[in-house]
């Protein structure tokens, strides 16, 4: 791992121009113009410091102090992936290694009339106008340097289109693997998912790292949820002690649609998840569940936005964390209720167990309400294990460590039970059980 301090911003901008110089005609495409605008935005914003309100508790200095290979080749095969212990399942499984789609490892089983699944690069070759139109559509106004960076640099990701009135039976599992066995690697996938009217789908993004070098993942996912659609979207992070992860999921919901998000951070050095949901329809409901277990000196930051723009919709949010050692957690939950969004119901709750005096949790609910006929509530708690419950269990013969892990597992249960892809939920239950038992 390189220890010299470098100027990552300058290096990235130089790289962009170098690549652009050899692009020939493609440089004038709509797609590339969007990327160029992304670069300009990034150049203007620069990497955030802790002086930035949205980054007050999450310092990226360490993340940007080294360089990463964003084009690293990987010889990874299924044999190595078996070690990653995600159970086999009846699902569409798509592998991305160092940010690039790997068709040899992937399996697509859902019929094409129900769903179009392809890599962003393939989709662009096939229909450049369509991909260019959707690309960065939802994130175009984002005031976030990492999203702009992704826009400028993304090379691949998933492009999913589900027509109207389709119920996609098999879930879609996107597995992003960083192969950091030999060097510091970076990847910036962009996922674009569009779910048609009255269609249903379940999907998960799972992030893993191989090897001990650094990995930096900067992922952006845009999800269009059309009228009456039902989307279950999960993000599972089980990365290495040297994994840096910044992710933004941007969702737009239309009338009478349903969206469920579950964000589970099992492991990783530094994690920042932005989940931004725009409820741009009436009678929608958005659900956000989150869970995180930092230990050592890990850092997990969840920023969420429920932006109510139309009347009669509901958002419901529950985030939970267990913090150990010298770890740090951050939760910032914004609820906007725009002037038109009368009869909005918005609920938010963040609950944490802090097991060590050196661990810390910063929570900040932020409600901005511009309509008068709304129901909003928020609450955060940060505490220790319930001693009375612990004694109760011990008085029945359950040893202290076993009682602790049962109680902690129970604490997580109402989030874990929301994960509706069975194999993902079972995987989480296993990993969480091991994690809780190991301390």
């Amino acid at each position, binding site marked *: 791992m390189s220890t010299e301090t470098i100027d990552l911003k300058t290096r990235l901008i130089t790289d962009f121009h170098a690549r652009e110089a050899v692009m020939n005609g493609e440089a004038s495409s709509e797609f590339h113009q969007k990327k160029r605008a992304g670069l300009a935005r990034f150049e203007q914003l620069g990497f955030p410091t802790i002086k930035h309100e949205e980054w007050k508790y999450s310092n990226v200095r360490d993340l940007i102090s080294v360089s990463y290979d964003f084009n690293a080749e990987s010889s990874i095969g299924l044999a190595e992936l078996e070690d990653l212990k995600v159970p086999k399942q009846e699902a569409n499984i798509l592998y991305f290694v160092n940010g690039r789609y790997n068709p040899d490892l992937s399996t697509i089983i859902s019929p094409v009339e129900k769903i179009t699944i392809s890599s962003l690069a393939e989709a662009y070759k096939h229909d450049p106008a369509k991909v260019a139109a959707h690309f960065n559509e939802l994130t175009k106004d984002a005031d976030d340097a990492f999203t702009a960076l992704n826009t400028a640099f993304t090379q691949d990701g998933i492009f999913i289109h589900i027509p109207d009135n389709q119920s996609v039976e098999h879930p879609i599992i996107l597995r992003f693997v960083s192969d950091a066995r030999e060097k510091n690697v970076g990847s910036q996938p962009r996922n674009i998912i569009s779910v048609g009217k009255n269609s249903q789908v379940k999907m998960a993004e799972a992030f893993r790292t191989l090897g001990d070098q650094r990995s930096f993942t900067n992922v952006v996912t845009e999800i269009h949820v059309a009228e009456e659609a039902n989307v279950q979207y999960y993000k599972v992070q089980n990365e290495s002690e040297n994994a840096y992860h910044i992710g933004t999921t941007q969702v737009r919901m239309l009338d009478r649609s349903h969206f469920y998000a579950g964000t589970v951070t099992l492991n990783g050095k530094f994690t920042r998840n932005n989940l931004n949901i725009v409820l741009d329809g009436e009678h929608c409901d958005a659900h956000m569940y989150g869970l995180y277990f930092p230990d050592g000196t890990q850092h997990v930051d969840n920023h969420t936005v429920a932006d109510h723009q139309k009347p009669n919709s509901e958002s419901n949010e529950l985030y939970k964390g267990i913090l150990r050692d010298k770890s740090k957690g951050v939760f910032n939950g914004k609820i906007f209720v725009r002037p038109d969004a009368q009869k909005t119901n918005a609920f938010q709750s963040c609950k944490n167990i802090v097991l060590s005096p050196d661990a810390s949790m910063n929570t900040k609910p932020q409600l901005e309400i511009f309509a008068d006929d709304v129901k909003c509530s928020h609450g955060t708690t940060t505490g220790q294990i*319930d001693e*009375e*419950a612990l*004694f*109760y*269990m*011990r*008085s*029945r*013969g*359950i*040893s*202290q460590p*076993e*009682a602790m892990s*049962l*109680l902690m*597992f*129970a*604490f*997580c*249960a*109402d989030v874990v039970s929301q994960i509706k892809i069975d194999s993902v939920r079972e995987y989480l239950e296993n990993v969480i059980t091991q994690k809780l038992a190991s301390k």
Partner: protein
Amino acid sequence: MLSINDLRASIEGKEILKGINLEVKPGEVHAIMGPNGSGKSTLASVLAGREEYEVTGGNVVFEGKEILELAPEERAAEGIFLAFQYPVEIPGVTTINFLKTAVNEIRKYKGEAPLDAAQFLKMVREKAKLVSMNDSLLKRALNEGFSGGEKKRNEIFQMAVLEPKLAILDETDSGLDIDALRIVAEGVNSLRSPERATIVVTHYQRLLDYIVPDYVHVLYKGRIVKSGPKELALELEEKGYDWIKAEVEAVG
């Protein structure tokens, strides 16, 4: 079976138990009565190993073992059971899963193999029947949203499953209507045997109509000030505690 000798205990520097002496033999039922604040629940808690209390003197021998140095889970494994006055609600842990863990942890302590799922379920169903516990409660989170009566019945059910040698019932009658009280008492009585003993801690006599004690002890200001046969409970019911207090003050 149980021998409490000059037991003293305090919480936050305040002495609550000021020298308790009590002998309990197998098969016996002892009632511990007394006015509020006399130290009844403290005694139950100290025997079960609640850590907020500091034992400042004396000892407790159970089946030949000093238990004050044992962790709560070790005491449970040795055969002591405390039915809580306020059973704790534990969301996310089902009653059945909780009990399975408890049973197998105790078996592990004794060097026995864990029960498999089928053996455990069979045993649990029998015990549930014994205390008229509805099967559906077993699958629900432990005590969560249970009525007062259901919580107390769940305590007795757990006791039936764990089969302790010594059961300590801490104000098990509080908050129960007469029907619930009778069901709970029937459960306790059905578990009585010549090998097992029970300590019933209660403020009121009415539970003792159903669980008839061999001995009644009056606890006042951290000491057992009077002991007698079951009729003592009736006398207390009739005359209240003032005459006991007066007697104690007179001896002073």
